[in-house]
């Protein structure tokens, strides 16, 4: 496994890249990184679990779409105040990812946006629950004038 030092994207978001072998054993590693970055973005427990589930679903579909045993997965996470964007692809970029109906339904219900394009999947998960809780807290604790 390798992980690059975090850098900034052109939008000023923090960028974290993780590379792991294309094997089911390493799904747990990506899930853990996703959970940590989701927590940093202010996700609720449910939103963190949604992101972890989405990562599992995509990487499992990638593994099912290839017979290669020596490729790797490159996951790029962009973390901002609004949420987390993830781009997942393979090292060689040779596979054509096919999501079955179940995987597509699951992704639709756990992330705000996802796009599959050849060997690459991009997804966006927004911290909506956290944002509404913060707004409610601010309203509740605001001093009356």
């Amino acid at each position, binding site marked *: 496994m390798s992980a690059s030092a975090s850098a900034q994207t052109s939008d000023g978001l923090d960028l974290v890249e993780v590379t792991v072998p294309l094997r*089911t*054993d390493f*799904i*747990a590693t990506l*899930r853990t990184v996703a959970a940590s970055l989701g927590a940093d973005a202010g996700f609720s427990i*449910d939103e963190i*679990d*949604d992101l*972890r*589930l989405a990562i*599992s*679903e995509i990487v*499992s*579909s990638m593994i*099912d779409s290839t017979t290669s045993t020596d490729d790797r997965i490159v996951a790029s996470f962009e973390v901002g105040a609004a949420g987390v964007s993830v781009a997942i692809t393979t090292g060689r970029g040779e596979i054509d990812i096919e999501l079955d109906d*179940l995987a597509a*339904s*699951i992704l639709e*219900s*756990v992330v705000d946006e996802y796009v599959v394009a050849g060997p690459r999947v991009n997804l966006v998960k927004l911290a909506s629950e956290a944002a509404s809780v913060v707004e409610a807290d601010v309203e509740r604790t605001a001093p009356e004038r």
Partner: protein
Amino acid sequence: MSDTSTADDLDDLELFREFAASRSRKLRNQLVERHMGLAAHIANRFRRQGGSDDDLRQVAMVGLVKAVDRFDPEYGAAFSAFAGRTIEGELKTPLP
């Protein structure tokens, strides 16, 4: 509890342990298929409160998938108890 249900519970536990170690979709789907009845039962309870059958069943199934994904077999709780709460939570979450 009957001998059969105890045997099923043990099979479940073994499957959940294997799934926790491998995160295999095939195992996940097998576990989901085993508990589809629970999701359908809870969706039926919510039918009285409105909503179409298909929508409720689909949301309940997503809740079941999430429950299988999150369940920790070492915690000691029964999966049905954990999944029931997770599926209900999913059904109570307002649609966007």
